[in-house]
């Protein structure tokens, strides 16, 4: 493989990693607040459509992006409603959300299949894009990817250096302690779920606005599930999410390149790569946690447990 090909592959990996990173960070925030959201796949699908249709009608990619984010937040608001107000089982509610979201996205999007939209285009950053090798990989991307560079830092800062983030983390570890401290755990959870949903929506929006620039069914392609797995892989830390997202971006880019190059390897096998990798990643994380035997799990202690009403 020539160096140019490798560079091109890495650049494609970075681009493919961006939506996954957004989705992973979004899910991470939700889980840090204590809510497991398995509906990310559905959220990304809906957001992809919302972004597409907005950009298609208004011609503005930025508006489309925002639409995708808000669609994501709204759908996650539904999850929040079912789990927090109606004390629904978080696992099943998330699954229902996925089925609903993917279905809704395909349903609403059927008339638009194959149609294109403006979307984001690559912008080469001045000076930075001229750096040999690195410039070509990291600094000749579209604006969403540049946004993705800041996202992990912003999320880390929010979670660890703001009082809101502190409250949110406390809610995910022990809602009773947050309540005793005078905070409102339900409100903080809702914030986490919907804020995270906004980020997941941004990831979904990227799929239709920058990844392909046109609408087809099944755009999310399992990425939402990869995001859930990556949160575990990242041990709930934003920094590590970058590694995971880049890994998956790489595999997806590699698989696409291979398919396009007309290889003998059957496409079905190639398509299996990301899913198999997800399982491997989970196995690796679990084995590592076991090996380290720290005795404490990295997961937020109250994850998946609903807050029951009192008195």
């Amino acid at each position, binding site marked *: 493989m020539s160096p140019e090909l490798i560079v091109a592959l890495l650049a494609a990996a970075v681009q493919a990693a961006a939506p996954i990173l957004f989705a992973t960070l979004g899910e991470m925030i939700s889980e840090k607040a204590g809510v497991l959201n398995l509906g990310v796949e559905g959220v990304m699908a809906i957001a992809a459509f919302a972004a597409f249709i907005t950009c298609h009608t208004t011609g503005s990619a930025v508006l489309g992006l925002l639409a995708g984010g808000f669609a994501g937040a709204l759908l996650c608001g539904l999850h929040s409603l079912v789990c927090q107000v109606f004390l629904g089982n978080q696992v099943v509610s998330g699954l229902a959300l996925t089925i609903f979201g993917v279905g809704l996205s395909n349903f609403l999007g059927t008339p638009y299949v194959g149609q294109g939209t403006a979307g984001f285009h690559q912008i080469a950053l001045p000076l930075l894009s001229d750096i040999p090798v690195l410039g070509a990989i990291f600094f000749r991307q579209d604006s969403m990817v540049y946004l993705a560079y800041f996202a992990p830092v912003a999320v880390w800062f929010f979670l*660890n*250096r*703001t*009082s*809101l983030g*502190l*409250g949110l*983390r*406390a809610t995910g*570890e*022990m809602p*009773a*302690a*947050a*309540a*005793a*401290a*005078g*905070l*409102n755990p339900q409100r903080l959870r809702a914030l986490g779920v919907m804020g995270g949903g906004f980020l997941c929506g941004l990831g979904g929006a990227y799929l239709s606005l920058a990844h392909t620039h046109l609408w087809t069914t099944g755009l999310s392609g399992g990425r939402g599930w990869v995001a859930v797995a990556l949160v575990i892989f990242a041990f709930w830390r934003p920094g590590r999410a970058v590694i995971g997202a880049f890994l998956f971006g790489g595999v997806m880019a590699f698989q696409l390149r291979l398919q396009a190059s007309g290889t003998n390897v059957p496409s079905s096998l190639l398509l299996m790569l990301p899913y198999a990798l997800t399982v491997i990643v989970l196995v690796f994380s679990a084995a590592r946690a076991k090996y380290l035997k720290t005795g*404490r799990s990295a997961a*937020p*202690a109250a994850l998946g447990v609903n807050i029951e009403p*009192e*008195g």
Partner: protein
Amino acid sequence: MSERQYRTDISSVDVLPQVRLVDVSKRFGQVLANDGISLSIMPGRIKALLGENGAGKSTLMAMLAGRFPPDGGHIEVEGRRVDFASPREAIAAGIGMVYQHFMLVENMTVAENVLLGQEGGFVLHPAAMRKQVGELAQRFGLGIDPGARVGDLSMGERQRVEILKLLYRESHVLIFDEPTAVLTPVEAESLFSALRTMSGQGKAIVFISHKLEEVLSLADEIAILRRGRIEGEFLASDVASPADLARRMVGRDVVLDIERNAVDQGRQVLAVRHLSGHGLDDVSFDLHRGEILAIVGVAGNGQQQLVEVVCGLERPESGEVNVLGQDWAKFFQSRDWKGALAWIPEDRAGLATCRGLSLTDNLLLTTRQGFAQGQWLERSRARGATTDIVREHNVQPGNIEAQAWQLSGGNLQKFVLGRELYREPRLMVAEQPTQGLDVSATEAVWQRLLEARKTAGVLLVTGDLTEALTLADRVAVMFRGRVMGLFPVTDTAQVERIGSLMAGLKD
């Protein structure tokens, strides 16, 4: 509404009560937890709220803390009526609570826990936070490392963090719920002196307890809560002795004077020799049929690990354990359900029973081998046995199809005890069997445990010294996984040293 006449010399001074409860009532379904309670909490005084579990103390404190509103009556702060819509409002009104089960986030640092929910701007500066909390701790003499992870701290240290939270908020009323439950006697003393200091600085202190000596040594005023009502309120100086206090509590001479008949000692049921590992350090003792051996000590000093080994959950790392005449490995290979080992764990709702299953199913949980023919389960026979147990042990409500979560703590414990006794064990391990139970349930459980001696040896793990000294023949004190002392209850010299032994002071 009835107007009770309390001794008015308490509020005789022209000082405004910091907090006043006026005829407060609260109902949960059928249960009237608080019934027309009126109480004044004065600044600079320490008031003890004395009562058994189930008397309504926790409900009262929860309302003061703003967790839920009263159904009747109201609360006044500094003379003005308040209706707390949330804990935040109660905190803002200057009411601070330290719960029995600490409200601390284990995965966060001391500084983060103290400053959680406090005003201080959107952005946090960890170094500044640590400095701030460190200074506060220094000022009040509460030594603690602000950067330490709370999960790594001891119980006494965690309590200091809880106190720091209140001090940071400049609470005027500090309420402590069973503050010494997890402390060694030495730590308890240092807590008491801290409380006296704070009271001297004008803070109003309320502490909830059911330990009579503690109440007498610390409180200025005592209020007795029984069945949701204030049964009496008086100055501590008016009380002659713990027995006097106990009488005022129950209205008659304390019943908790159980009849202990002598029982012949039988053959050995448990022998532990130099058991080490898993947090245990060279533990040795044996147990015979006919006796109760109490393991006392502050929670977290190896009792749980000991129970896990004796009950087969953890393999003994080094040393020997002989259960009912068989080596540990051999005994736990083939589990007989009858005539063997029965374990009554501390967590009766989460471990001993399945909350979503019926009582019959809960019986089957540990007796299923006795109702199975191969794979077939004889449910009708099990239902019959459940009905018998429910009747014999007076489990309310008497419906065997009721699910475990619907039973109160006392009834659930009676059921668990009934179930385990049905198995005719020869070795019984009971952990904190009367924790959270009211007087009548406690009596019932104690009677059963004493009766069990006729057919079994009982290993009683408890943090309640009264329980230990009432029921046991011998006492073993544990500290950091070691047995600090093992002696018969009749050895008064040793019994008096239990406190120091619990704190690890050998001599």
